[in-house]
Every structure is written in structure tokens, then in C-alpha cells.
């Protein structure tokens, strides 16, 4: 499932190093529209695309993660054709 961004605006993809997630849940505190937790409270948002308009939330969440396990990767439309 790929975004159909018409312009050259890069889309942002979230990478979560799940083995480093210890369930602080600050990603959801800072980015409730972006991040999601499983029933035990661990982040399950690895690999998702940041919804348009929520870029600031996503960045704040990555910065807030005490385990430093969230990175945000810029993808330009041209190299966004990789397989899932």
C-alpha cells in the first residue's frame, strides 16, 4: 500500500526497533494520531507511514522515546516503490 503523493514532498516512514521497546508508551503520549500500542503496551507502529499533517507529532514521539528506538525515514516518491 503506497501513498499516491502527487508532488515531490517526501513521505515519512516510521521505523521502530521493537526489541528495544520496553513499553514506556511515550510515543502514544506525544503522537496519539500516529502511534499504536499492543495490549501489553508495546509499540506496534513499525513500518507505517506518517499520516499527512502529523509529521510534527511523529518527530516529537521519536524524540521522546526514552529507549531511542524510533527513527523516522524520509522516502521520496521515486524510491518509494520498494516491496513491502
Amino acid at each position, binding site marked *: 500500500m503506497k501513498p499516491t503523493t502527487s508532488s515531490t514532498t517526501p513521505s515519512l516512514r516510521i521505523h521502530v526497533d521493537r526489541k528495544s521497546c520496553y513499553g514506556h508508551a511515550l510515543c502514544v503520549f506525544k503522537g496519539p494520531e500516529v502511534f499504536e500500542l499492543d495490549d501489553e503496551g508495546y509499540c506496534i507502529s513499525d513500518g507505517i507511514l506518517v499520516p499527512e499533517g502529523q509529521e510534527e507529532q511523529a518527530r516529537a514521539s521519536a524524540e*521522546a522515546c526514552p529507549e531511542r528506538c524510533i527513527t523516522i525515514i524520509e522516502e521520496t516518491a521515486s524510491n518509494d516503490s520498494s516491496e513491502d
Partner: protein
Amino acid sequence: MAMDIPPHVPRELVFDFDFHTDQRLRDDPQRGFRSLYELPSIFYAPHYGGHWVISGYETVFDALHSPDIFSSEDQHIPPSDEPQFGQIPVMQDPPEHTVYRRLISPLLSPKAVGALEARTRVLASELIEGFKDRGQCDFVREFAALVPVTIFLRLMDLPTDKLEEFRKWSDDFFSAGTEEALRAANDQILAYISGHISSRRGSGANDFISALWREEVHGRPITQEEMEAICMLLFIAGTDTVTNTLGFSMRHIAEHPEIQERIASNPSEIPEAVEECLRLFSTSNVQRRVACDTTFRGVAMKRNDMAVVLTSTAGADSEMTDNAETFMLDRGRKQHLAFGAGPHRCAGSHLARIEIKVCLQEWFKRIARFGIKPAAEVPTRAGTVMGIMSLPLTWDL
């Protein structure tokens, strides 16, 4: 404090610091622990058998993520040959820790404790309504000490007639400076909970104790002994900590009318205020035992050295943030290790955040301006886990 310093400890890393009674910790223990930033981030304190003191965000973070060096098993300060009376899983290392941690995480997940927010709100508002018209209260005794214990007792489905004793038992536990005192405090709590635990075996109810009885570890049913060790931890970790963080935070806010004004006129900022409270007024440090001869961040350590890891002051590291000692709602990144990090990250952190947030919200809805009662005594306790025993506040009616 005359004692032999072990030969592997360099003399320039030895500093006289007693984490229960040092002068710097009197009245304002957090400020006292923060003052240790003048010393090396790893130093050796010649008290309670001698132990390392580890501070600074990066150093503490590193220690918490090195369970193979800093073990949670058999950590005693002072050291002891007595078998350790356990708290599970806080006194275990991975992979064993992981087995037990898996049992309690779902009970305290954000989803599970989210349902407690409304209940906490009713409780907090009832308590405040009870003393609001008096123009004064003891914030700790009449409010902060009651909310977390009441919620805890409901989760465990235990009777609420022992509230006063609970507070005293926690205080005895955390102020114990000797092995005997610690054991006595431990036995007091255990004597109370063990009967309640055994009577829930086979119950189909949904309280924590009944739910834990239905769990298995290593493919066999959980035992009474394991249940006691888990419930001891929940009791010790789940009550006193929130009370004291609220108490120390409110003392600071009571002394700063500008913070009161800001919060009262912007109540939507309370969740951010909670993070700032946690950054400066967290009450828990942790203890570890060095598991092997090693060099940690350039310092040689020997197997069975003990360490106090200052998680409480990690958020006030001036390397990490500007004006680190100042309470600032506008601080962008309120980074702290109040709940630790790594495998032992506080499982109750989500409930703690809800309780602190709701208590502040309900308070500021009703009492926007207040101060510490003139000439009032505000007794505090230092140690690995700090405490504030009383905080008399007054306000205009």
C-alpha cells in the same frame, strides 16, 4: 565511617556520602542528590559496606541497559549473606525476569489502567471536596497518601481499613538502614498480604491476586511463594512512590505562585506538567550488584560490588537540557528516567502518570492559589527511595 576501601577502588573516586543521612539530603533530598553532579558520575561511597554511586543521564541509561554487569539479583546495601527475600520481578535478571514480567505487564498496560482514570477522578475530587472549605489540609496525609493506596487496594481487592498502617509499613521499609530493620519491615507487609493471597487461590475473580493465580510459569502453576514476591513488589512500588512524587512536586508548586497561575489558567498543560514533575521530583533510585569483574565507563569494578543508580536525578542532567534545575513547562524535551529504562522499566508507570495527572487536575479545578502553611514542618526522608511525610498547605476561602 572508617572502613577499608577495597584495593580496586581508586582513592580519587572515594567521596563521603551517606545516602540516608548526608547533610545535603536534609529537607530537600532531590536537590541533595542533584548536588552530586559536582562529583564524578561514578564514585565510591564508604558507607553501608561501601558501594558505587552512579549518576548522569547517559551513565545511568547505560547501567540500566547492562543487566549482565549490573545485576538485580542479590543486591543488598549493606551486603548480606542472608538469602534475599525476593520481590519478583524487580530482583531478577533476564531471561528469568522476562518470564515473570510477562505476567504483570498486561495487568498494568495503558489499556488496562486507562479504565481506572474515571475511578481515580471520583476519589480525588471527593477527597478535595472534603477539605476544600477548611482553607487548609495536609496535602500528603489527607490526599497524596490516600489516592494511590486506595486504587491499589481496589486493584488487589483488599479491605481499605489498613490505610494508615500501609503508609507506615512502606516508610519503615524504605527508611531501613540495616538488614534487620529491612527484614522486619518486609515481614510486617508479608504477614498482612500472605493470608489474602492464599485465600484467593482458585478464585475466578478479576482482581490482580486472583488473576495472577491463574498464571503459569515454566509450564507449572505459580506458587504461593512467587505470588508473595510479586505482591510485595506491587505493594512496595505501587503506593509510596506516587504519594511522594506528588508530595515533593506540590511542595515546589506551592512555593512558586507563577507555576500555580500558569497551570490554573492552562489546565490542558497538566500532562506536560506531570513530566516536569517526574523530571525533577521523582523519588526512586535503584540498587544493583556488579555481576562480574569488569570495567564500566573506565572504572574498574569487582564482582559483588554494590551500586546505587541515581535514576531520580537523571532528568536534571545539565548535559541533556538547559536550566536543568528549573521547573519549566515550556521545556520542549522533558527527558527523565523516573521510571527507569531497559528491561526493568517501571511496569506501573502508566498508572502512576494517570494518578498524578488526575490529582493535579482535580486539585487545580478547585484550589488555584495556595501556599505552605507558615512555620509548618515538612519532614522528608532520603535513601534509595525518598519520601515526604507531611505537607501542610493553606489557601484563601
